[in-house]
């Protein structure tokens, strides 16, 4: 039957669905050459299902991108540790472990697609997806991602981690502030990589036609989050502790990563312009889990390299930036490119204008889309360098306060975006005064 998710599954997966027949919970683990860490992730998922959902049928699905190491073997052959060691009850229902290679465009999004197709084919009530390179995952993550869906009626559970102040810089400087300003929901880690999803939302994802775009790659996380917040699905967050994972593939191209994530945000802005243009301000999203402080891996930074990349961009790319940026914005950016001494500061209001003007230009000039997105890399590095210089001596909570100020600048600048988007006269966007007290970010529900 056309559109039936089972009909889209590879033969191997289809036969597994036929033999298992049905499941209540699906835990998806996308992977590519993760032999070193995936065993631990599978253990944690298995233990989480056994400990917290023994009365439910669970399936762990590994969707692999053609690993050349032993990733798939480890998933299929690893043995569940003794139940008494983990202090978990023996599951009343079995936990199946499956591993399939996915087909189509190589990338995380294609892996997710296979997991969602499996979840829908098995009739799962809840599905969680966790990264395969996690070192800090515990069985509790499974509970925290699944329980809000199964027992509290939420459709989408986003992760909430403690991260080093220099970790997740695309999230902190672009994706979180922009998504929050657009859709009005404070989902702190919109591209966290670990999610819980309801059956309804899985069906909605699978019904969409844009799986072959940037969504197939790094764009998948923001795509999932945006659909959830823009289409009125019930969204919450779960506190998962620290996110410790293997370093990203050193060969991974920052420009491609930025291009795919930000390109997806901008593409979804076009689709949901009717939604975000009517929303203003933002509100907290329910947060589950017991919050505690954790030790984090240190992150070293190379400030000079980032500044040099930006200055090089000023020399080479101003002609491309001029397509997107207003003359005064471009002048301010080029002026910053001539600053060689500290402090190197790209102020919030200027950064907000840069992002809004790029988003708007990409909507107006789709043929220039790829060039504009790729030309954003040096500007992004300038923003990160400025953030690093500014927060060098700050504590984690002070840095969070600083990110909050940036978010408020994005929210206050929204009329500028709306005017720019509609081609109307632009209001003046002035820098906001720093706040004296930290705002209440989230409501914690243990």
């Amino acid at each position, binding site marked *: 039957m056309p559109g039936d998710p089972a009909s889209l599954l590879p033969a191997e997966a289809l036969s597994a669905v036929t033999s298992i027949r049905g499941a209540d919970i699906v835990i998806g683990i996308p992977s590519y050459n993760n032999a070193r860490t995936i065993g631990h992730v599978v253990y944690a998922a298995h233990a989480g299902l056994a400990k917290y959902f023994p009365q439910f049928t669970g399936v762990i699905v590994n969707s692999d991108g053609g690993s050349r190491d032993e990733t798939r073997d480890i998933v299929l052959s690893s043995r569940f540790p003794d139940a008494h060691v983990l202090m978990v009850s023996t599951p009343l229902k079995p936990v199946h472990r499956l591993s399939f290679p996915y087909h189509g465009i190589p990338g995380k999004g294609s892996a997710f697609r296979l997991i969602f197709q499996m979840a829908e084919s098995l009739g799962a009530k809840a599905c969680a997806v966790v990264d395969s390179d996690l070192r800090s995952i515990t069985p509790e993550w499974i509970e925290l991602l699944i329980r809000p869906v199964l027992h509290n009626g939420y459709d989408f559970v986003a992760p909430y981690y403690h*991260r080093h102040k*220099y*970790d*997740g*810089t*695309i*999230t902190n400087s672009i994706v979180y502030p922009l998504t929050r300003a657009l859709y009005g929901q404070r989902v702190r880690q919109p*591209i966290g*990589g670990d999610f819980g999803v309801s059956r309804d939302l899985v069906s909605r994802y699978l019904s969409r036609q844009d799986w072959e775009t940037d969504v197939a790659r*790094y764009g998948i*996380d923001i795509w999932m989050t945006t659909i959830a917040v823009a289409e009125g699905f019930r969204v919450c967050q779960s506190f998962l502790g620290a996110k410790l*994972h293997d*370093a*990203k*593939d*050193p*060969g991974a*191209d*920052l*420009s491609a*990563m*930025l291009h795919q*994530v930000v390109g997806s945000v901008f593409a979804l802005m076009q689709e949901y312009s009717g939604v975000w243009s009517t929303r203003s301000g933002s509100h907290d999203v329910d947060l589950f889990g017991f919050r505690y402080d954790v030790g984090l891996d240190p*992150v*070293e*930074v*190379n400030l000079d390299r980032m500044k040099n*990349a930006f200055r*090089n*961009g000023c020399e*080479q*790319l101003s002609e*491309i930036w001029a*397509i997107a940026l207003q003359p005064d914005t471009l002048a301010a950016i080029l002026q910053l490119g001539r600053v060689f001494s500290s402090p190197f500061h790209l102020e919030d209001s200027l950064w907000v204008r840069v992002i809004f003007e790029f988003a708007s230009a990409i909507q*107006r*000039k*789709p*043929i*220039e889309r*790829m*060039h504009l997105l*790729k*030309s954003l*890399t*040096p500007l992004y590095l300038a923003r*990160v360098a400025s953030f690093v210089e500014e927060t060098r001596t700050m504590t984690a909570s002070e840095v969070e306060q600083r990110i909050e100020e940036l978010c408020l600048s994005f929210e206050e600048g929204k009329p500028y975006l709306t005017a720019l988007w509609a081609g109307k006269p632009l209001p003046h966007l002035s820098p906001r005064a720093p706040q004296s007290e930290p705002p209440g970010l989230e409501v914690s529900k243990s």
Partner: protein
Amino acid sequence: MIRTLQEVFNRAVENLYFQVTTYLPPLLVAILILLVAYALARSIRWLLLHAFKGLAADRFLEESGLSSLFARAGRLRAAALLATFVYWAIFVIAALTALNVFDTKLTSQIVEGTVFLFPKLLTAGAILLAGVWLGHYFGRSVLLWACNEELPRPRLLASLTRTVIVFVAVVVAADALNFARNVFLASFIILTGAAALAASLAFGLGGRRAFEDYLERRSHSRAETGKSFFQHL
């Protein structure tokens, strides 16, 4: 003697009369046609500029990047483009009509040649436009790639890319026009061959070591990047 002079004089007058009666009316008609065409072309251009907003066409020019390709400030407007095109089209048609009035072998040949050449000119123009657009597009792609990869002299690489693509477009356009076909083709083959040979020699003799060093530095710096840069997501 006087009679002979009178005959010569009469012949000259007759010739002059013949030439005046033969060429002056067509010349006057031709001038009239050109004047009318000029007035018509100006009026239509004014009308097009003021009456035709061309919003959809403007959007196409902006979205396709043609606007920023030809106008640095990106203010190329469809109405202005169309008005200029119509203005010159009317003028060329009028000039051909005016030439046709003389009804001589030479003017007929000119008119015929122009009419037959027109579709080829349009094709060649389209090829050149596409070549310039593609050159511009791929030039920018190379510039961005080289800049983001921190390669030396990104602008030079971008200009080279643009030049090669535009040159190919010129060769194809010349071929479509049957214009200096052999010259362009030969120069294209010679230049391409020379570039390939130069690159091979440079790479094989001088650049191999440098390229090895570059790859080594790059893989080293990437490994460091993975260690010490960011978890950007």
